């Protein structure tokens, strides 16, 4: 493999992912517009690009498979084949397979070869009229490696180049130089007999022929290779002249041409498996080898047979192995890079330049400062502030990507879901250009998928039911993204049957989430579906209801510092709204004071703050302190106890209790005072210090001191298990 190019692999994977998206998206559109030539060309080009570039890195499985797809695509775009649903289906499945192949090239995880082979065969059948054998990616050296013949040979070369020689930027001298690099070039004679009269000469044409003699140790094929670009259009004869005795100068090793084949070998030089070598040498047939391999037992099986380990022990060990495999591969696949528009970087560089100027002006001012310069100083400070703010904004924007990348998987998903469930669904995307932090985009994929699945599976009714209810036969799922007040909103909307109040209440009672006589408003009922283990789907389908429920959606979104809300109208549909922060690095926080310390509480987790009435806070044996908030008892956490501080207030009735919520659980946290609200930049504790229970991170406050950001989840744990562990930690 060409090691020089290996450094570009990361770029290839990124590019391939983009091309795959184009192919997939194009194929989906193709179903609607089977005759769209532009579309076909676009798909073809992307596939072609993947093929060509994959080959450069020796990813031959990828190149070969893409070649098969490309062949079929080529037939389609040339009109030799028509786009049929089955062909579109095949191409889509093949795209999935190609994705796995590329993933495998990236992470080294093995691919299910059966699928690849089956699809390869299917693609070949679909493009049956194509007679071309698949040779792409296979190793073809352009010239046989120099098989040294016993010694130096002398060749007579007669060459009449095509008359367009000059017009294509070629120079006869160049050929002779190259020949000379192969050996000793002598007796060059020019044949100018074809030269017409001066008046008839086209100066751009070549009328000349040459004869020459070359003494070389190289193979005749290498001599021919010199004329590679013109051979088909030239009159070229290369004859051996053994009889002639010419002074033989061995080619110096310096101008020896080496056609190393190694770089093009698909594998990386690791030795071949024994079986392969035996098959190649003809000692065994492939069938015999397969048979032998089938008999081969795995270490685990042997150990079980010998009763060294029990099958249970083996299963456990295997599970552990799989886990390790999956974690290592996912880690590998996660090495993230980001492509940034050069314009953004240029702008940033300019801004940094301005910052440097401002800084040097300031230090100049500082070195000879007098009180009279104060206005200038203030002016410069203002400039510095502007520079900093602008740089901050620009740097943030580097991480911002249009959300369209997260949406792009849905047309395919919805198509497959509709086909599986026998429903008719149209998907409408809007707001794809809304920009969002890259990490957020990557993390909302799964929750969004779940919501879309949920809408397609549970929300939308089958066509007959829709028609019975005077609705359009085709159900609609709408995905929309937009900015509002420093947040991003993503809505997943369907025009299906809506949530069923009775069913949810019944289920919640059955699960013991609410008591039978509890009177709940709609807004209290809908969030119940986000509780763990809650699923009203009567039958578990292939699509949703696979144990991962809406609770995961909620947890993921909250993990990103966001929130999910539901709006539903029976018979008319449901809207799920995801509210997400613009970036993960900055959160909206409430600053609170405990003694001399300032803490930040994530604003999203605060439900309310109260000053309890006397007697509201009680101590329950085994549960510690609890507070009665409108009939519900919540655990109370005294901040000063958790973090061992000197508080100003120790009586709950004088203090402030913040009611915080996370993942559906609530806790009351006691603080001295609420200071205000501000945006804070999160600095990691783990990276700079170590993990501290109850603290999610730290930030620099306006006055330069460090403020800790509370981890609501952690506080809840502390409330549950007592503070001793936290203090000890």
């Amino acid at each position, binding site marked *: 493999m*060409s090691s*020089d*190019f290996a450094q*570009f692999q990361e*770029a*290839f994977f990124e*590019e391939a992912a983009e091309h795959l998206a184009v192919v997939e998206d194009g194929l989906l559109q193709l179903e609607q517009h089977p005759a769209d030539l532009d579309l076909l*060309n*676009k798909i*073809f*080009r992307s596939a*072609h*690009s993947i*093929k*060509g*570039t994959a*080959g*450069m*890195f*020796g990813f031959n499985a990828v*190149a070969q498979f893409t*070649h098969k797809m*490309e*062949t079929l695509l080529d037939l389609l775009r040339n009109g030799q084949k028509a786009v049929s649903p089955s062909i579109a289906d095949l191409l889509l499945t093949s795209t999935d397979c190609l994705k796995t192949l590329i993933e495998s090239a990236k992470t080294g995880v093995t691919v299910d070869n059966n699928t690849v082979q089956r699809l390869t065969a299917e693609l070949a059948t679909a493009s049956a009229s194509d007679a*071309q054998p698949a*040779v*792409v*990616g296979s190793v*073809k050296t*352009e010239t046989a490696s120099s098989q040294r013949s016993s010694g130096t040979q002398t060749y007579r070369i007669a060459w009449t180049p095509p008359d367009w020689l*000059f*017009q*294509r*930027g*070629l*120079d006869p*001298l*160049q050929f002779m*130089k*190259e020949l000379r690099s192969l050996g000793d070039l002598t007796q060059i004679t020019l044949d100018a007999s074809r030269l017409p009269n001066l008046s008839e000469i086209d100066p*751009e044409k070549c009328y000349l022929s040459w004869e020459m003699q070359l003494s070389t140790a190289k193979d005749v094929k290498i001599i021919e290779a*010199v004329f*590679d*670009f013109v051979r088909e*259009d030239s009159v070229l004869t290369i004859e051996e002249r053994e009889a002639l005795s010419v002074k033989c100068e061995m080619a110096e090793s310096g101008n020896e041409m080496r056609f*190393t084949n190694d*770089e*093009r070998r698909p594998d990386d030089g690791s030795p071949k498996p024994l079986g392969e070598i035996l098959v190649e040498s003809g000692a065994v047939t492939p069938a015999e080898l397969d048979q032998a391999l089938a008999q081969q037992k795995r270490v685990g099986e042997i150990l079980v047979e010998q009763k060294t380990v029990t099958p249970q022990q083996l299963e456990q060990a295997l599970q552990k192995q799989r886990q390790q495999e999956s974690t290592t591969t996912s880690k590998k696949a996660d090495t993230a890079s980001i492509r940034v528009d050069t314009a953004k970087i240029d702008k940033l560089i300019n801004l940094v330049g301005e910052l440097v100027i401002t800084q040097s002006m300031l230090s100049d001012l500082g070195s000879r400062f007098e009180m009279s310069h104060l206005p200038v100083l203030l002016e410069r400070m203002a400039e510095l502030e502007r520079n900093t703010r602008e740089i901050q904004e620009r740097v943030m924007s580097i991480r911002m990507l249009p959300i369209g990348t997260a949406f792009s998987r849905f047309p395919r998903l919805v198509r497959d879901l509709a086909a599986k469930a026998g429903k008719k669904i149209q998907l409408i995307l809007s707001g794809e250009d809304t920009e969002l932090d890259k990490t957020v985009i990557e993390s909302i994929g799964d929750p969004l998928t779940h919501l879309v699945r949920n809408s397609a599976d549970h929300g939308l009714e089958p066509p007959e039911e829709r028609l019975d209810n005077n609705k359009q036969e085709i159900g609609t799922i709408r995905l929309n993204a937009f900015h509002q007040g420093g947040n991003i909103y993503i809505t997943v909307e369907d025009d299906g049957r809506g949530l069923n109040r009775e069913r949810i209440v019944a289920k919640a009672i059955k699960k013991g989430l609410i008591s039978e006589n509890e009177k709940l408003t709609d807004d209290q009922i809908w969030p119940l579906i986000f509780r763990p283990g809650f699923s009203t789907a009567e039958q578990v389908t292939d699509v949703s209801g696979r144990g991962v429920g809406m609770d995961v959606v909620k947890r993921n979104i909250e993990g990103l510092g966001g929130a999910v809300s539901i709006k539903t109208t029976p018979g008319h549909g449901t809207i799920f709204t995801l509210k997400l922060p613009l970036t993960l690095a900055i959160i909206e926080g409430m600053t609170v004071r405990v003694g001399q310390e300032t803490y930040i509480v994530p604003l999203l987790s605060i439900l309310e703050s109260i000053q309890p009435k006397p007697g509201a806070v009680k101590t329950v044996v085994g549960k510690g302190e609890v507070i009665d908030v409108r009939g519900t008892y919540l655990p109370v956490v005294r901040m000063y106890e958790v973090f061992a501080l000197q508080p100003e207030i120790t009586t709950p009735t004088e203090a402030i209790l913040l009611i915080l919520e996370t993942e559906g659980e609530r806790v009351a946290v006691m603080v001295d005072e609420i200071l205000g609200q501000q945006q804070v930049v999160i600095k990691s504790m783990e990276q700079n210090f170590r993990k501290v229970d109850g603290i999610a991170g730290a930030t620099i406050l306006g006055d330069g001191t460090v403020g800790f950001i509370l981890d609501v989840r952690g506080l809840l744990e502390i409330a549950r298990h007592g503070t001793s562990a936290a203090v000890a930690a």
Partner: protein
Amino acid sequence: MSKTALIVDDSPTMRQMVAFTLTNAGFTVIQAEDGKDAVKKVSAGMKLDIVVTDLNMPEMDGIALIKELRKLTTFKFTPILMLTTESAAEKKVAGKEAGATGWIVKPFNPEVLLKTIAKVMPA
């Protein structure tokens, strides 16, 4: 004076690889992402020593680009190499007819790239 090369490919990865190899070999490299971009970049009367172009590209493909370049006096005799895949034999012929000097078959390694360029570049 260093030689100037124009590399035209819609794949940024390919472009980077070729550019990297040529830059290391002492070339000044100009990159273009398709034929149209390339024509725009050379139309200012720029002199180039070599052009390496992909064939399959959006907007203007390699063949059209070669034809376009050969129309310009400055590019009449400039060596133009096309990047092809083995399967695209008819493309190679079309490229030759359009005026391409030679071709490099993908996949290639840096050595082959530089060798082929040396082959067609007047010293």
